[in-house]
């Protein structure tokens, strides 16, 4: 592994002197490095997972060279070995991504690996999310063209990355956008009409062919975006092409695979004015899982983006039962074609000097999210409740030193993913208090409580953070189950930051559960260990 890195580092270092003169010549080198290393150890109390190596390390080095309209870059990844809970496809070291690109104001061409998204990503998205281990960048080519700000078009072709390799699935696509309001020179309204086409081709085995399944399938999406005076409306319809699911009831006669057609509808609308933001999203999904490799159960196996559209919390106890979207389930005795639901967000800033605003203003926010299974395939009838959350939070500076955030959340979570209508109901309260002793010295205390009659019953948690700006931050936290397990999930550590480099060291006990990022979750086992993380860029 090291020899690959050394060669690249040497090459990059050779380019670096050029970058130091770059201000005049318009060429420069940038890059970033991220490393996350954990030393695991035995913890009988939580049945923590300890890999054979007792050690895991995920590392990413990214370099980009810019020269006028030309850009080239690469990414090296090393999993030595991969951290516990990450997809097992990630292993050892490799040059995983590389590209060259030329762009001017109208034309652009990229060859190599690239990230792309059509519309909201329901039809197609390639992206990277290191918290999930996700990187499905397309290896191929992309051509983009735009005529002023009236018309734009993209054409793509490539094979998506899967783990450390490139999969054999071919993806061809095109995306168009046209703005009549720009054509007419209207300034106070913005309207654009957009559309995409996507063809996915994967050679399928004889089993599939016998059932009439095809190797190639084409999907499309149509979209409208409208904005005027703070009001906005976005609508999207997606036909995601044919999907094939193994039928668990297959008994040797009839078809082994069920044929479904993916479709989705999305509406996002809202109104934003000074100090006020209101947003409503409504979405319905049916058979929308678009896979890179058909039937592979890996969490990396995605070619589109179906996030959970609800609040993603950061406080410990609010994330115990996170929601993941249902894109269609086929089980024995249970078939659910997808989900439907929506969320409403309201943000309001009570200005300074008003009764509720006080001297320094008060920020309030409320969210309501609710999602159901689809009662009957092909309809808009809601079935069992999958997830519901109502939350409200208030942020207020009481004086120059003291700030509080108070949060309440009522969550209902269906542990059977909609197979029946039983739910776990929990009430969560959080008080987050910040006190600034001086311009550079502050402390923050979080107190949290979760009350529920289900699962492991009540939880309590606390976190204390001490900050010495701009370099040091130290914290200790504990999460304790008052109900069934009576286990402490303690954690403590510090972070040191200088310019664009951040180094953190922490030790703690982590419970099994989910890590969510961008509305997509992956399951993690319990582990206990020492975590060293470094990020830097230049």
């Amino acid at each position: 592994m090291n020899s690959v890195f050394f060669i690249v580092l040497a090459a990059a270092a050779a380019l670096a002197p050029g970058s130091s003169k770059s201000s005049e010549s318009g060429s420069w080198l940038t890059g970033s490095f991220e490393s996350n290393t954990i030393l695991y150890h035995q913890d009988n109390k939580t049945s923590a997972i300890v890999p054979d190596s007792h050690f895991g390390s995920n590392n990413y080095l990214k370099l980009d060279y810019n020269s006028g309209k030309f850009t080239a870059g690469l990414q090296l990844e090393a999993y030595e070995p991969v951290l516990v809970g990450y997809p097992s496809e990630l292993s050892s070291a490799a040059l995983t991504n590389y590209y060259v690109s030329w762009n001017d104001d109208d034309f652009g061409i990229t060859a190599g690996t690239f990230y792309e998204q059509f519309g909201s990503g329901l039809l197609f998205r390639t992206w990277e999310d290191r918290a999930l281990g996700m990187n499905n960048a397309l290896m191929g080519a992309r051509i983009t063209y735009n005529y002023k700000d009236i018309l734009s078009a993209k054409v793509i072709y490539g094979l998506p990355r899967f783990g450390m390799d490139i999969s054999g699935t071919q993806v061809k696509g095109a995306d168009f956008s046209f703005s009549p309001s720009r054509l007419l020179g209207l300034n106070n309204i913005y309207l654009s009409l957009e559309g995409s086409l996507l063809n996915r081709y994967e050679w399928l085995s004889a089993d599939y062919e016998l059932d009439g399944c095809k190797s190639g399938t084409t999907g499309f999406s149509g979209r409208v975006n409208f904005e005027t005076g703070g009001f906005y409306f976005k609508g999207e319809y997606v036909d995601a092409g044919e999907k094939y699911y193994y039928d668990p009831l297959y008994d040797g006669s009839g078809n082994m695979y069920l044929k479904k057609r993916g479709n989705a509808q999305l509406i996002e609308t809202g109104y934003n004015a000074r100090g006020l933001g209101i947003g409503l999203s409504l979405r319905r999904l049916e058979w929308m899982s678009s896979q890179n490799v058909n039937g592979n159960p890996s969490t990396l196996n995605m070619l589109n983006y179906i996030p959970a559209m609800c609040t993603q919390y950061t406080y410990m106890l609010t994330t115990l039962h996170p929601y993941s979207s249902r894109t269609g389930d086929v089980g024995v005795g249970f078939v659910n074609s997808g989900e439907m639901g929506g969320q409403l967000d309201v943000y309001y800033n009570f200005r300074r000097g008003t009764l509720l605003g006080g001297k320094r203003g008060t920020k309030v926010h409320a969210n309501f999210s609710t999602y159901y299974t689809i009662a009957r395939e092909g309809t808009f009838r809601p079935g069992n409740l999958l997830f519901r959350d109502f939350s409200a939070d208030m942020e207020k500076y009481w004086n120059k030193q003291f700030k509080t955030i108070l949060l309440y959340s009522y969550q209902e979570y269906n542990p059977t993913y909609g197979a029946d209508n039983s739910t776990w109901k929990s009430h969560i309260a959080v008080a987050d208090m910040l006190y600034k002793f001086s311009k550079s010295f502050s402390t923050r205390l979080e107190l949290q409580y979760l009350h529920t009659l289900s699962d492991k019953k009540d939880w309590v948690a606390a976190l204390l953070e001490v900050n010495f700006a701009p370099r040091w931050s130290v914290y200790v936290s504990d999460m304790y189950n008052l109900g069934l397990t009576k286990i402490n999930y303690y954690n403590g550590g510090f972070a040191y930051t200088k310019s664009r480099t951040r180094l953190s060291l922490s030790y703690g006990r982590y419970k099994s559960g989910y890590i969510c990022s961008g509305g997509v979750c992956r399951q993690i086992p319990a582990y206990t260990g020492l975590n060293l993380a470094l990020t830097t860029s230049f």
Partner: protein
Amino acid sequence: MKIKSVLRFFVSVSAFLLSICSFAQLPSVKIDNLKGEQINTNSLLDDGKPMIISFWACTCKPCIQELDSINENLPDWLEEADFKVVAVSTDDARFSAKARSLAQGHGWEDFVQLYDKNQDFMRAMNVSVTPQVFVLDGKGNIVYSHTGYVPGSELELLDAIKGIE
């Protein structure tokens, strides 16, 4: 053995990083503005003003805290230097509508708001964690940056801007 190879890797990367200088500039990337129109990041240089570019996300509490602090200090800072603040939401498509509402609800009307829904700008600037803040001069040269936020670290931004003039 593994630990040794990772340590060797750490040392080599660190040595390399020390050997290069940071003269990076504003890259040219297409990105959505508040209305949902696509603009080129080059157009941020049209008025020739220095700028603070802050990468944030709805799920990143320190980012929101930092932008709130900048917003609170902005009237005073503008008396000392002429510059603009660009807040780049790195939220995916699922949160770009929420990010717009949050920005309004936090009173960030004076910021230039950009929405980087597939993180193209974020990647081009080599941001791997948020919050990350840059200070650029009027020609687009990066003169200062920092990652992470603790209350008080925003004060370095004004010093960096004043250093340009």
